[in-house]
């Protein structure tokens, strides 16, 4: 009941109304969403590949300078994602691909937070040639797996809209 109220609120919001009325908003939002995902994944690939052992002569601190790019990409996708959601909140909420995608984003976010608080400072101080500890490597591998899975399930949202019984 609380969920229904929230979905109704999102549906009736100014953002929802305007997005349903002017089709170019959704189209433009998707272009931004795709550019944002390239920024997020590009930065995460550079950072996580270094943590996994590619190009060890590069200080870990140097690749961490790309974190603001990842955050920018994420912010672009969060903002456009809210626009898409308000377009059809009930449709998204019922879509299994959307639910899996949001769960994966949440886990990827927690993984990134854990990395920031547990590993970031120690790794930023590491000299060139330094290998990341096993915990940071697992974190990096998980990060790449999760973000690429987010893309996969994001793409499948449309497939489930097209035919709801697709993978049942």
């Amino acid at each position, binding site marked *: 009941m609380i969920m229904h109220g929230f979905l109704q609120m999102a549906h009736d919001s100014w953002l929802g109304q305007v997005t349903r009325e002017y089709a170019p908003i959704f189209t433009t939002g998707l272009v931004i969403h795709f550019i944002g995902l390239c920024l997020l994944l*590009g930065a995460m690939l550079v950072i996580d590949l270094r943590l996994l052992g590619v190009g060890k002569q590069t200080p870990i601190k140097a690749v961490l*300078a790309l974190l603001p790019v990842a955050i920018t990409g994420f912010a672009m996708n969060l903002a456009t994602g809210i626009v898409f959601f308000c377009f059809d909140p009930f449709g998204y909420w019922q879509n299994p691909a959307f639910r899996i995608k949001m769960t994966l984003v949440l886990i990827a976010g927690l993984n990134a937070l854990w990395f920031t608080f547990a590993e970031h400072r120690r790794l930023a101080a590491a000299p060139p040639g330094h290998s990341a500890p096993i915990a940071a490597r697992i974190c990096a591998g998980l990060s790449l797996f999760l973000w690429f899975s987010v*893309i996969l399930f994001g793409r499948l949202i449309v497939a489930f809209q097209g035919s709801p019984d697709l993978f049942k």
Partner: protein
Amino acid sequence: MGFLDWLEELPLSQWVAQSEVGYPMMLSIHSIGMAAVVGLLLMFDLRVLGLARGVPVSFFRKVMPFAWAGFFLNLVSGVLLFNSTAHRLVDNWPFLSKMVCILAAGAVTWLLWRAIGSVEEAGGGASADAQTAIVASPVVKALALASIILWLAAITFGRLIAYVMDYMILNAK
């Protein structure tokens, strides 16, 4: 139009066009490949333009195989997507614009690496000074900026393909 008919009638094209999983699977692979190739090339361009200066240009040589892997995924999934809808793509203006942008972006990236490679050979490119000199060149910076614009244009045109097509395959059923 005989060749396009032949492409669309290939068993693999039929599978992509008509099976429940073929089309979404190809689109998913295409997005994952895009994230790898465009994502990494954008990071390289941003580095050349002055972001994350502590990362040596040589580091990007080591991650380029992952960009190539993404490109290969997109070449294969892109060809299969094209074959399954050849007639509707061959005169689709966003599709043709996307192809031009990708060819141009590829050429610009090649020129960018070539410019960097020639400086590296001339003066022992591994040193920090040489690396700074490489990316300080206005020509190299202009190439990086052109690369960013062309990749973003390719993504934009790619998004518009479906809107200009008569109808989406999934909705046709």
